[in-house]
C-alpha cells in the first residue's frame, strides 16, 4: 500500500496536499483498492463553497457509489476534469490524480488531520 509523506490524511481515506494558499484533495491508494474498478467520478462545480465534512464528490465502482468528504473547508477553485473521462486514473495512481483543488478557509483545520505515519497505522487497524 502506497502512502505519500508530507500529505494530510482523513479517516475517510482522503488526502490533502497544501501548496501555498491552495490545497489539492484526492483519495488514497488504500481507498482506491477498497473500491475496486472505478467507473465514474462526479465532482463539484468550481466556486462551490464547501465545509469540512461536506460531500464534494462521488466515486462509483461497478458495485456501488461512495461519497467523498471534504477534509477541510474551502472554495473549489479547480476540478480534475480528466477524471470525468478516465475515472480509472484513480485506480492507476490515486496520489497523482487529485480530484479537486480548494482555497483553504481555515488552515488550522489541517492540524486535525493525520500525517503519513499516523494514517498508515490507521489503515493497518482497518484491514
Amino acid at each position, binding site marked *: 500500500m502506497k502512502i505519500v509523506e508530507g500529505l494530510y490524511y482523513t479517516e475517510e481515506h482522503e488526502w490533502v496536499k497544501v501548496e501555498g494558499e491552495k490545497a489539492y484533495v484526492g483519495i488514497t491508494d488504500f481507498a482506491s483498492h477498497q473500491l*475496486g*474498478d472505478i*467507473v*465514474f467520478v*462526479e465532482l463539484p462545480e468550481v466556486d462551490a463553497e464547501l465545509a469540512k465534512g461536506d460531500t464534494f464528490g*462521488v466515486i*462509483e*465502482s*461497478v*458495485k*456501488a*457509489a461512495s461519497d467523498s468528504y471534504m477534509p477541510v473547508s474551502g472554495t473549489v477553485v479547480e476540478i480534475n476534469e480528466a477524471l*470525468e473521462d478516465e475515472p480509472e486514473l484513480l485506480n492507476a495512481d490515486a496520489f497523482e490524480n487529485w480530484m479537486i483543488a480548494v482555497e483553504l478557509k481555515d488552515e488550522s483545520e489541517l492540524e486535525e488531520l493525520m500525517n503519513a505515519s499516523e494514517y498508515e497505522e490507521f489503515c493497518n487497524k482497518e484491514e
Partner: protein
Amino acid sequence: MADLKRTALYDSHLKWGGKIIGFAGWELPVQYEGLVPEHHAVRNNAGLFDVSHMGEVSVKGKEATAFVQYLVTNDVKVMADNQVIYAQMCYENGGVVDDLLVYKFDNDEYFLVINASNVDKDYAWMVEVAAKFDVALVNLSPDYSELALQGPKAQEILQKLTDTNLDEVGFFFLKRDVNIDGINCLISRTGYTGEDGFEIYISHEDAPKMWDSILNIGKDLGVKPVGLGARDTLRFEATLPLYGQEIDKDISPLEAGLGYFVKLDTDDFIGKDALVKQKAEGLKRKVVGFEMIGKGIPRHEYLVFKDGKEIGVVTTGYKSPTLDRTIGLALVDAEYSKMDEEFEIQIRNKMSLAKVVSKRFYQKQYKK
C-alpha cells in the same frame, strides 16, 4: 455480523481471499480478486460460485405434477423426466411470490430451487397451496450445499473430475447420482450468468473438497472463484431477473417481460385469472432496457422522469463490464416503453438523459 448464517464453504472463502458481506441472511463473499476480473473470468473461461444460500424444496406424491402445475406459471405437465424449467410462483393478484427452477425427477417427484431471501415465505406458501393436493413437501434448504460452475470452459473443467459424459446432460436437464471427484451429486446444466455451465447440489461435508478440487483442476483453464458482485453483473447483462428488483410481489411476470414463462393457455395456476386480465387490458407498466446518454451510473431504486413527471424506477443498472456501456433496466409506464424513447434518471440531485434500448444486452451463450 450477528444472526447471519454461514455456508459450509465459509472457511473456503476466507482461504481463497473472499471479502465477506451479509446477503439475504447469509455471510457470503462479495468478491475475491475483484468484481471485474471475476466477471470476465466467467465470460471468457469459468467461474465458481457458492450458491448454498439458495433454498430447495422436495415435492413427492401421487399429485406432485398437478400440485406444481397449479403452483407455477410455466407448463409443468409437458416436462420430460430429468428436465428443468424456469418459472414464477404468483399470488392470486398476479404479483410474484418468487421465481424458481423446477427440477422434475418423475411424475411423482420434483425438486424446487428458490431464492435464499424467500425460503421461509415460499415454503409457507407452498404448504398452504399443497393442502388441496396429495403431496408431501420437505424443506431441504438446510441440507444442501450448492456450487455453480459457469463459463465456456465449465464443462471441460468439470469433465476432468467425472467419468459421466457431461454431453449427456443437456441444456436445462439434470442428472442424479453423478460421481464427481468421488462425491455423489445432483447436477444440472443451468445457471444465472448467461453462459453454459452447471449447478451442483451436494452435502455440506463434501462441499469444501469439491470447491478446492474444481478450482485446482481448472486453474490452467482460468477458473476463478466468483463473488456476489459479479454474480449480479453477469445475470444483469444476460437480462436474468432478480427477485426484489425486476420481479416482486407488486410486479407481475408479464410486466417484467417474462411472458415466455407464463403459459396462459394451459391448466389453471395461481394468478392465472389476474394475468389473463392484465394481458387483455394491456400492460400499464413494463420493464425496459435503457442506455445512459448523460453522465452517471443508474442504480436500483433511482427514479425515472419524463418532462418532470415521475414515470418509473430503475430496477438494476451498471456500467456493464462486458459491453462497456452504462445500461439499466427500469419499470416504467407502458407509454414510455417504446424503443428510442428518451427519459431522465434522477442520479442524486441531477437529472441525466437515457433512452430505451433492447434489453437483450448480452447474447446468452448457452449450449443447446
